[in-house]
Structures are given as structure tokens and as C-alpha cells.
């Protein structure tokens, strides 16, 4: 009897397990097909049917599909993301609940891809709106910019509640977690109003001291594609033939702007069809992966330790914050960041700005423990990146 019983149990289990394994295999194959798509539509013939197969698996496919985003490249991630969304939509339409606990576990597990975690969090909220208040505090230092932003916004809203006492320390405690300029601006002003001092240049890690050289001649607005001696410079050394044959040399410059703006029209004079270079020495305590983020209304190239890490040839289309991001690794000790800033010959009044901001930060946009070489009181010194003892007044505040 015992033998018969266990045989029966074994057969039953095998029968039950066999289709599940097959289904799992099918799903795994379909997900692998989605992750295998390549450039210019490579793999699309197979990916279309695979997408249908994934969605056809129903709710069982939701978490594996979200998990597959972890090591997917951006193109594959969108195949997966849309599939996960379609699965969730079908489940809701059919009146079936999403797996709230599993989604919450996924959303809070920082080993998963930030974009997939964000999607899991949003799906969770459709099932369990109360999860928002429960989970947001834990996202305050998150890799996902959207989760972090929401967490900071939620805390800002709490501090804005006039029925509760709030201190400067509350804002000072929150500021280090903020990454978006509007939130940083809000918190810095709140701290200032309460008698403190929040340095936006230090918060963002702006270069505030550099050497400049220029202008170089750039006929026909071809400065971006023209090579000049300071390209990929590793030290502020040398004298060069500049615009109209004039000799130009590296010279130290600093900015007191709250957002690290170097106004080249003021520092080098107004020039058209011109190129200038800025060189900053950034000191790292250890080898550190970093992003070098540049904001400029004109064409720029960025070099880190002699290697070009970013380039964009575009003039006077606006200068969204952090639009030009290059990635690299700082070595321990001194690192040289060079920014090539071009100006064209557009005559319009709105096309006269020639300026840049550059900051060195982590991949969330947060400041790193870095220093920069600067000249302070006439003496060369190593100071904190973003060092700005006398920040210029906010022009908006001045107007008021």
C-alpha cells in the first residue's frame, strides 16, 4: 500500500510538474528571444511572436518579465517593459489581482533594474495605493531617479505641513538626497530662509575653479570639428595662436555663480566663430566611476584625462541642465577635465550666450567626495569640489 501510494503521489507530482516546467521553459525561451533583439530591428521577426507568447502566459509571466529587465539593454528592456505592462493590464481587465507582495518585494530589492523596480512599484500602487506611504521613505536614496524624486517630494510635503513644527535641520537632512534641480533649489532656499547656508555648487559638485584658454578662430562655425592644440590637454601649459593671430595662454578663472556658470563672454570677451577651453583638476581619494555633466547652449566636447568622453555639435537650442553627460573613471589623485566650448556666428540676440557649467558626480547625479585645484587668496590650494565661499546672488531674487 505504501508503495502504491508513493507511486501514485510520484506520478501525480510528475504530471503536475511536467507542464509547469514546459511552460517555464517556453517563457524563458520567449524572454531570451526578447533580450536578443539587436540594432536596426535585428531579431524583430522572432521578438514579435515571443512578445505574444510572454503576454499569453498571463499573470505567471509578470515577475519573470520584470526580472528579465535587469540585464537587458535599453532596446530589449522596452520589449520586456511593454510585455509586463500588457500582462498586468490583461490581469486587471480579467478581474484578477496582481501579486502585491511579490511586486513589493521586487520594488524594494535594489538588485533589480531601477526602471523595472519603478514599474513594479507603479503596478503595486494600482493594487495597493497604501503602499505609497509605506514604501516611499525607503526610496529616499534610491538609484531610480523617479523613486528618489517621489520620496524626496513626499518628505518635502511633510515639511510643508504648517501644522507641524519644522527646523532647519529637517531641510538640511533632506537636501543630500535630492538630485533634481527644482527640489534642490527649494530645499536650499528653505535652509537659507531659516538662517543656514546651503551651497548648490557643493551639492551638485560643480567645478568652480579652472584654467581657460581662448578664443581660437573657428571660421564658418566649424570649431566643433576643428582640432586645436588644447584638445585633450592634460595640463594648463603652453601658449597658442588664437583668434586674429593673437597669442593666447591658459589663465586661472573662477566662478561664484550658484550653479557654477563660467560666462565666457565676460571672462574672454564676446567672440563669434570662436572656441575656448576650460581645464579643471579634480582630485579623487580613490579610483571612482563618475559622470561629467556639462550644461551649455553651444557645441561642446568633454575630455577626462585626455580621453574624449562626450561631444555634441548643437548651437543655441537651449541649455537644459545636465544635458551633456560623459562617463568615465577617475583615477586616485589628480584628474584633468577639459571642456571645449564653441561659439558660432548666429546674430540673433538670443544666440549670444557663450558659457558652460561642468560638474563631476555619481550616476545618480549626486556629489562625490572630490576636491579641485583652485587659487584661493592668490595661493594655489586644493579645496572641495563646488567650493564657493561667496556665491553670487540669485538673479531672480535680485529682481524681486
Amino acid at each position, binding site marked *: 500500500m505504501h508503495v502504491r501510494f508513493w507511486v501514485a503521489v510520484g506520478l501525480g507530482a510528475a504530471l503536475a510538474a511536467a507542464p509547469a516546467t514546459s511552460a517555464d521553459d517556453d517563457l524563458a525561451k520567449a524572454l531570451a528571444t526578447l533580450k536578443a533583439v539587436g540594432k536596426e530591428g535585428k531579431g524583430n521577426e522572432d521578438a514579435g511572436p515571443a512578445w505574444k507568447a510572454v503576454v499569453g502566459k498571463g499573470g505567471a509571466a509578470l515577475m519573470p518579465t520584470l526580472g528579465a529587465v535587469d540585464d537587458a539593454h535599453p532596446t530589449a528592456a522596452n520589449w520586456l517593459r*511593454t510585455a509586463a505592462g*500588457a500582462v498586468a493590464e490583461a490581469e486587471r481587465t480579467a478581474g484578477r489581482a496582481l501579486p502585491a507582495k511579490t511586486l513589493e518585494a521586487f520594488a524594494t530589492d535594489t538588485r533589480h533594474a531601477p526602471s523595472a523596480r519603478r514599474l513594479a512599484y507603479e503596478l503595486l500602487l494600482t493594487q495597493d495605493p497604501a503602499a505609497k506611504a509605506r514604501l516611499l521613505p525607503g526610496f529616499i536614496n534610491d538609484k531610480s531617479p523617479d523613486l528618489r524624486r517621489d520620496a524626496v517630494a513626499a518628505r518635502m510635503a511633510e515639511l510643508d505641513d504648517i501644522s507641524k513644527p519644522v527646523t532647519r535641520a529637517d531641510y538640511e537632512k533632506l537636501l543630500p538626497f535630492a538630485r533634481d534641480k527644482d527640489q534642490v533649489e527649494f530645499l536650499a532656499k528653505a535652509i537659507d530662509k531659516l538662517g543656514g547656508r546651503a551651497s548648490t555648487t557643493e551639492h551638485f559638485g560643480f567645478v568652480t575653479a579652472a584654467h581657460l584658454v581662448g578664443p581660437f578662430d573657428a571660421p564658418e562655425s566649424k570649431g566643433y570639428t576643428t582640432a586645436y592644440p588644447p584638445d585633450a590637454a592634460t595640463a594648463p601649459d603652453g601658449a597658442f595662436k588664437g583668434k586674429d593671430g593673437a597669442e593666447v595662454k591658459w589663465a586661472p578663472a573662477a566662478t561664484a555663480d550658484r550653479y557654477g556658470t563660467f560666462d565666457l563672454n565676460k571672462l574672454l570677451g564676446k567672440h563669434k566663430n570662436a572656441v575656448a577651453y576650460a581645464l579643471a583638476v579634480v582630485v579623487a581619494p580613490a579610483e571612482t566611476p563618475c559622470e561629467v555633466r556639462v550644461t551649455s547652449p553651444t557645441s561642446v566636447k568633454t575630455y577626462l584625462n585626455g580621453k574624449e568622453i562626450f561631444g555634441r555639435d548643437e548651437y543655441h537650442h537651449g541649455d537644459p541642465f545636465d544635458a551633456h553627460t560623459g562617463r568615465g573613471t577617475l583615477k586616485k589623485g589628480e584628474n584633468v577635465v577639459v571642456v571645449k566650448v564653441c561659439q558660432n556666428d548666429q546674430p540673433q540676440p538670443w544666440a549670444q550666450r557663450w558659457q558652460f557649467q561642468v560638474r563631476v558626480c555619481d550616476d545618480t547625479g549626486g556629489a562625490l567626495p572630490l576636491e579641485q585645484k583652485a587659487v584661493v587668496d592668490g595661493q594655489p590650494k586644493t579645496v572641495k569640489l563646488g567650493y564657493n565661499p561667496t556665491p553670487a546672488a540669485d538673479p531672480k531674487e535680485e529682481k524681486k
Partner: protein
Amino acid sequence: MTRSSLAVFLTLALAPALPAADWPQFRGPNGNGVSDEKGLPVEWGKDKGVKWKAELPGRGVSSPVVAGGRVYVTCSNGKRDDRLHVLCFDAATGKQLWHRQLQATGNTAAHPKSCMAANTPAADGEGVYALFATGDLAAFDADGTLRWYRSLVGDYPTVTNVVGMASSPVLVRDRLVVPMENAGESFLAAVDTKYGKNLWKAERPQGTNWTTPLVRQAGAVTEVLFAGPGGLTAYDAATGTSRWTAKSAVGSVPSGAIDGDTIYLPVAGVSRFKLGPDGLGEKPAWEAKEAQTGYPSPVVYAGKVFACGSQGFVTCADAKTGKVLYKERVKGAFSASPVAGDGKVYCLNETGSCTVLDATADDFTPLATNDLGGDTLGTPAIANGLVFIRNDKMLYAVGK
């Protein structure tokens, strides 16, 4: 089945998949903003004349498109404007049928007026083809199944700019023509509608260009006419070969309109050119310099040219002579292009106020001014006896 009924059946079966009532792409079935629909609405408001309305998850400069009884809309949202949405509604009831989301893979910087959902999608009997200003391009079938997807920035990494991209794709039988002129690798490409793979890819100059290609039959050749800062170039839709360029017919934001062997271009106000088999006549037949267009494209209807300017002027000129019949300031500035049908011209301004003009009158004859409110930059669609209007929050089906 009788012989005659078989003939009727075959005729219907071989007819194009799209009925005339559809509005499958930017500015309608012929890309000129004109509909053959009758019984179109004159008066409406927030509380009257709206058949249905539906909430949208984000902004959009793109138009709704209508095909096979479905309305497709694109939106973008998020702090970084990197959440891309494609939604499908039942055209008759407004019921949301599906909603898919993509994560932007390209740069999301743009002029503040624009956003990543700036390009109008194209639709056919198979479904919808949604292009975003981030270079994300996805094809969904009518039920929301992802047929294929491409990241054009993944394919061509320099594709992007910081002012935004808004040119819309157009369908030419089994191929989708994708305009991608920007500060990086610029091209006009045709991809197959089945898998999204390149059929041809024609190099284009780098720059800002928000015009949408026009399509015409030139003898045995189907031409794609694409205007840009360097002029108007005709490409063979089959091969991508450049057939001719008219350098004087430059374009940047608004698009032209073809009416038989005549093309009306937003050059020097609006200009009328003879469109021969080998290109444009050297000089325009007329120039209506008073008909300033700004962002909106002109519409040619009922023997007249109507232009809505950024400053809020509506100009009407005789299509044969270019004689300006009237120029009147109406409520608000325009970004949406005017559309026409059933003897009316719909001029939708940026605040959701739509002036309905009697197109048959030679003098300024407004029939109604209807206000739905909301930031409204997308061009309306006309289909199924309804006018579809989208703003940054809502989609409205106006009419009975």
C-alpha cells in the same frame, strides 16, 4: 453567391483596408488637413457637443489618429519626460482599449513648448506606428500587441538634439517613412511595416527640422517630398533615391500641402508652386506674405488657403491668385494646424479655443468659437463625423 454579389464581395475585399473616414496620420489621409466627412460639428463646449472624453496620462504635441474605429494617442510624462505612452480608444465610445508604456532611450531635452510625444503616429488596418522625439519607434497592432520596436538612438547613437524633434512618420503602402533630422546622424528612412527593418536610409543634413514628409504620385513613381533647411527634396519611395531638390522651398517647422499638380508651401508666408514631374517650377505662382504660419501648417480647402499664425492671426487667401481675402486676429496663438471639412475650417488655439470658420465665405465668417480649455498644441483629427481634440490632459471626441 451570385456572380454580381461575388463581384461586390471581391471589390470590397480588395479595397484599401482604411475607409475614407479614417484620419490615419498627421493632417489626415492625404497629409493636407482636409477631410471628406460631412455633418461635422459647429458648436461645442465643456458641457455640450462632446460625444465622449477620456483622460490622458501626459502631454502631447502629437495629433490623435483614427483608423479602423480606433483612436490612437501618444503622450509623454515624468520629471525627465522619459515616460512614453501609446493609448488606444474605441472611437465610438471612448473606452480605453489598451495603454502601453515605453522608457525613453534617447535624450529628452526639448523646447519647453514641446515634449517627447511631439511626432504624430501613423495608423493603418494593422495598427499604429508611434514615433517619439526620443527616437523610440514602436508598432502595435490594433489590440495592443507589440509587433516590433526600435530604438533609433540605440541604432544610431548620435541621434538627438536639445530642441526636440517633431517630424511625423508617414505610411506609403508597406513602408513607414521615418524622418529623423537632428543634431546628430540625420536621415530619412523607410522601414518595412512588418518588422521595422530598414528598406532604405537616405542621409540628411544635420539640423532642426520639424516638417513632415508629403507623398505624391509622379507618373509610375511614388515620391516622398521632404522639406528642410536645404530645400524640398523628392525621394523615390521605393528606393530612397533622391530625384530632385528645389533649394528655394526651404522648410523648418510647418509642412506644405499638395493639391493635384500644385503644392502650397509655408515659404515667404505661403507660396504656390507648380509641381511638375521633375520638380517645382523655379518661381512660385504667387506668394502670400501676409499668410504667416509660425508653427501650424496651412490648409488648402474650398479654393482658399488658410493659415493660422503663432500670433493669433488667421489669414485666408485665394488659392488660385494668392490674393489675401482677409486677415483677422482671433482668440489666442496657434500651434495646432488648421483642419477642414464639411465647409468649415477648424482653427484650434493653444488654450483649447477653436474658431470654426465658414470656408465657403470670402470674408471672415466665424460660425462659432468653442472652448474646451487646456494646453492644446496638437492638430485635431477628423473622422467618423467627429472632431478629435487632444490637450495635455484630455482627449475629446466632439460631435454627435
